[in-house]
């Protein structure tokens, strides 16, 4: 109880908790879940974009996309490392992902159907991710906060690149503009779902905010995202697919229509349109790569043994 009080005082004072510090089990568990889920999202998130690397429409776009996906792999690595400092190994986390026990962002269960989806993902999905992540640079767990600093810098770069793709398409041929609008139509609502359930359906928010592993509520972040994104869509001549969307002078933000929460929970349950493809891809990569990881381990062991001898 002394320890707990000291811990809570440090957190309340916005100090960083470090791996060797004492922390409540629930804090450790919640953080492990949150960071590993974030790491999984980076890794699974490589797939929808990876789907277009071989088809990127110019050498420049191909290089940018490849670099972006590479960044995501890098984020996955920092985040797995941050989560490992809490005492769970990367293998355990990956097993949890493959067994369906661990989750990843629902957004990656939607297909990338046209090139414009690459723009939409950068613009909307990275945009929403940044909105979630910027506050986490000041999260109470040191290794997570430091990982977030680097992640956020790169994500905002990605977000700008995505918006630039959309801008280019929206100003392009009629076919390109149609592609861009269609991508916005398909990705808009799933992006809003990225902030999670409404506040009254999000029972852990209060605790997480007290622990400084969450700094704003889901609905606050969602509102902020809408307020920032709608003018961006307007600026390039695309329309947000929400008939109820309108500016509300009083609150100084947009009112917007209801999210289809039934769809959200179905996707959380693993019933997203391409959820099976995503899990199959990850499982196969892991299983088919087992012999490589084993070989590397065996070689390292032999080599160490030889050196020791």
């Amino acid at each position, binding site marked *: 109880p002394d320890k707990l009080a000291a811990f809570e005082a440090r957190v309340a004072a916005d100090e960083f908790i470090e791996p060797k510090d004492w922390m409540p089990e629930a804090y450790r568990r919640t953080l492990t879940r949150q960071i590993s889920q974030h790491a999984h999202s980076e*890794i699974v998130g*490589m*797939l929808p974009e*990876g789907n277009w*690397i*071989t*088809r*990127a*429409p*110019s*050498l*420049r*776009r*191909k*290089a940018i996309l*490849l*670099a972006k*996906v*590479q960044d995501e*792999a*890098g984020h*996955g*690595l920092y985040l*797995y490392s941050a989560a490992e400092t809490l005492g769970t190994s990367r293998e355990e986390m990956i097993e949890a992902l493959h067994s369906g026990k661990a989750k990843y962002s629902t957004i990656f269960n939607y297909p990338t159907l046209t*090139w414009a989806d690459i723009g939409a993902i950068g613009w909307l999905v990275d945009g929403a991710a940044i909105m979630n992540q910027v506050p986490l640079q000041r999260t109470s767990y040191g290794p997570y906060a430091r990982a977030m600093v680097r992640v956020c810098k790169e994500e905002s770069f990605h977000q700008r690149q995505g918006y630039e793709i959309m801008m*280019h398409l929206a100003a*392009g*041929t009629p*076919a*390109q503009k149609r592609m861009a609008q269609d991508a916005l139509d398909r990705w808009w609502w799933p992006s809003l779902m990225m902030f999670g359930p409404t506040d009254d359906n999000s029972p852990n928010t209060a605790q997480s905010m007290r622990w400084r592993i969450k700094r704003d509520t889901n609905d606050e972040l969602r509102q902020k995202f809408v307020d920032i994104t709608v003018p961006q869509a307007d600026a390039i001549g695309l329309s947000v697919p929400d008939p109820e969307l309108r500016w509300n002078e009083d609150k100084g933000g947009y009112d917007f229509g209801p999210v289809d929460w039934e769809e959200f929970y179905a996707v959380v349950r693993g019933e997203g349109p391409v959820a099976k493809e995503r899990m199959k*891809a990850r499982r*196969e*990569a*892991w299983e*088919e*790569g*087992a*012999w*490589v*990881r*084993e*070989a*590397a381990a*065996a*070689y390292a062991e*032999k080599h160490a043994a030889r050196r020791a001898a």
Partner: protein
Amino acid sequence: NLVLFDTLLRLGDDSLILGQRLSEWCGHAPSVEVDLSLANMGLDLIGQATHFLGAAGAAEGRGRDGDALAFRRDVLDFRNCWLVEQPNGDFAQTMARQFLFSTWQQMLFDRLTASTDATIAAIAAKAVKEVTYHAELAAEWVVRLGDGTEESRRRMAAGLDWMWRFIPELFEMDEIATEAAERGIGTDVTLFRADYDARIAAVLAEATLEAPKDQRPIVGGRRGHHSEHLGHILAPMQFLQRTYPDATW
């Protein structure tokens, strides 16, 4: 300027097609670290292709830029070697291809830094560092897999066996290569064949692997005669540019 154009196409197409192949791995590699290093090599290669093909377009002088060359030629006009278009197969096969190719490319670029063509010399000077790293990384994997487990050894041997027959094409000196070497644009690749063989042999020895048996050389890529794989690489790669010919991206 046909010789310069063709020389640049050969260089650019090798990098482009291998970069494209590596990017197929994205999200499917044995570990996140490997995913990263494959994407990294792919990115280097796409960058090289961008420079070489851009220079090729300039040398041709018919208004085609690097994208036009990458995305609007069909198989008969591609000038890459057979090795780079071979399928990824498993990770061992991918590393066998990378090892045999990057080792060659490194020796080539090393000499091309002295090209009389300033553009080639400049691209090579930048790229040789990248490629040296690719060759080392691939060699490390050849050793690790060859001298790892029974399974990795079997797979590594099979990967080398698949790729081995495409080595002679790397050292082919046809008319264009000969003239390019004479003019100092290119280089006589046969001059480093012995170095290449020695390097390959040294790595295989460290990997405790035997060299596959030599067989009748398979050539033709430099004249547009490829394996069946290239068409399947180009179809997705070129899809958007082919489907929306009036668009820019």
